């Protein structure tokens, strides 16, 4: 078990290095020159060169990548002596459009994204799994049909439609949330009610599509597992239907859900662009889309891309380790 975990950990670190290097190469290839973008109206080639040096783009991609890595652990100083700015470790770069360390910007945005992702995750898992189990148990009956309507609506409504509908009706028509308050940050520990006001509807919007998928997935897994031989064995032993469902069926049926749930959650931690946009949440998704479309703030783009991929890789690792605990067959092989 220990060697399995440490091996997976090593792979993840190697993969993270490769991914980060790839990101630097990709952004080097994009035909936009940040040095020119930050140049004022009276731009001269020498100014552009000076900017390029200031931005740290005058060295090879490898060198840029290496400086970034060092900065992550040791902090980093940008600019020349007179106007030097130091970002403490973990330094993700310096945004010249916002004149702030990227780490600070990301740290401001992340609580929004985390709240949204975590809230949605809990909502869709509880709704999706319980509805899925219910409709599997009542296959063909009213509850099953009703939940399949939910699945149909949930999977066919894109977030930008359902989100706008939610904003229209719940926020503007019924005034459940003050539109001016929309997207305001409230600390969930000191002001849980305010936090709920900000995040409940975005979470529900985001969870809707996922919950529908998870309902369908859980339903088919439970039905499939129920016809397994080992469930017949459990019944032949004399176990009650309740114990069979809770202990034997769900354990096997939900194991694959751990995998996709982990990856879905990781994907959201990188930012939910549409939902954050609709509800005015200044999370990572909004941050990166703004950096891409408006300011071409390369350090921010690199940082958010890297953070998103790091979440996926780390969650992948966690899922793999969790799976080894769930399924003994993984442990020994």
């Amino acid at each position, binding site marked *: 078990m220990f060697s399995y975990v440490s091996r997976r950990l090593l792979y993840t670190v190697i993969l993270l290095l490769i991914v980060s290097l790839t990101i630097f190469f990709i952004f080097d290839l994009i035909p936009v020159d940040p040095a020119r973008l930050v140049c004022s109206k009276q731009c001269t080639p020498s100014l552009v060169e000076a900017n390029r040096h200031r931005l740290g783009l005058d060295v090879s991609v490898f060198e840029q990548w290496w400086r970034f890595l060092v900065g992550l652990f040791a902090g980093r100083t940008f600019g020349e002596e007179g106007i030097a700015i130091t970002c403490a470790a973990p330094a993700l770069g310096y945004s010249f459009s916002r004149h702030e360390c990227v780490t600070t910007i990301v740290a401001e945005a992340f609580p929004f994204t985390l709240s949204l992702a975590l809230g949605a995750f809990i909502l869709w898992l509880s709704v999706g799994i319980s509805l899925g189990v219910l409709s599997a148990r009542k296959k063909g009956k009213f509850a099953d049909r009703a939940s399949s309507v939910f699945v149909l609506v949930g999977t066919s409504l894109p977030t930008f439609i359902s989100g706008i509908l939610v904003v229209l009706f719940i926020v503007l028509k019924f005034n459940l949330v003050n539109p001016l308050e929309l997207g305001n940050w409230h600390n969930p520990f000191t002001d849980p009610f305010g936090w709920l006001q900000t995040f409940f509807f975005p979470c529900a919007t985001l969870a809707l599509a996922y919950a529908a998928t998870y309902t369908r997935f859980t339903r088919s897994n439970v039905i499939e597992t129920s016809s*397994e*031989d*080992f469930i*017949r*064995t*459990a*019944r*032949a*032993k*004399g*176990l*009650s239907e309740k114990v069979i469902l809770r202990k*034997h069926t769900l*354990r*096997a049926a939900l*194991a694959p859900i751990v995998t996709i749930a982990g990856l879905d959650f990781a994907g959201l931690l990188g930012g939910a662009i549409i939902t954050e946009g609709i509800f005015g949440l200044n999370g990572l998704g909004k941050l990166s889309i703004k950096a891409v479309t408006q300011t071409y703030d390369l350090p921010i783009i690199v940082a958010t891309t890297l953070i998103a991929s790091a979440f996926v890789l780390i969650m992948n690792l966690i899922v793999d380790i969790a799976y080894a605990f*769930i*399924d*003994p*067959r993984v442990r*020994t092989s």
Partner: protein
Amino acid sequence: MSQFLEVSNLNVTFPTEDGDVRASNEITYSVGLGETLAIVGESGSGKSVSNLAVMGLHNPSRTKITGSAVLNLSSGPVDVISAPTESVRKLRGKEMSMIFQDPMSALHPFFSIGDQIAEAWHLYNKGSKKDGIKKATEMLELVGIPDAANRVNDYPHQFSGGMRQRAMIAMALVNNPALLIADEPTTALDVTVQSQILTLLKNLQKELNMAIILITHDLGVVAEFADRICVMYGGRIVESGSVEDIFYRPSHPYTLGLLNSVPRLSSGTSHRLKAIPGQPPSLIELPAGCAFAPRCEYVSRVTSGACLTQVPQLIEKSTSHSSRCHLSADELNNLVKDKA
């Protein structure tokens, strides 16, 4: 020998969109403590279905069951067909147990062998988790798993096929049931392992005085193992009797066909094995007369033509031996001799 299980006129029907599947049709048999009844037939003849009904393992919303199956318990007889599902559940594992064909898939892959056996024990016994594992270890020793104290913590995928079937037997017998239904317990196993498992069952039967119902299509297994035999075809019992009756005095053309299709080392000469021509009937549309008639070589010998129009009754040849054929045993014997 008192009869522990008495099944009579058991019908199991699965309603489907294409019509009712009559998988088990007026089945009657019984088995006593210490006795082994073999139920023989080809795939789809309804061998397992009637026994799954006895165990109460059919999905009630998709099955129609009539008739009776009475367990003569020390507390009094119980008809498991008409008894409430919850009280039948409490007989499962305690009074009657079942082991299945494929030990590869019959054990839960996520739980250790010991936990799975202990779970069955805890259902009917009070004790700590440790007691359960101790009991599981004892049972694994009983079924001949070497180094049981360590293997009890293993998971099913760490066991070989034969060991898994032993573990299944250990689990089925942990509460000392009076009846064990073994549904093709050796079909998925190697030949050498097959005989080990059967010997194990035989020895355990002597030790625990169980009634065993052995469902199989393997006549070799039956000859070695059973006291009495029911031959099933098309959802009906076509012949039943003692091992001697069935093997030496078969009185149904289907039983004859089965016996002729078994290779014999003693026969010496290299004659071809006789296969029964044709296919088993669909259980949705059984022939009007004898279900075997379309494949039977003696149909033309029944001059009344009853084979195609009348379902033959189960006729007693002797106290223990009966068969469902319009030909009497003597007539059939003469026809067989004529052919030879």
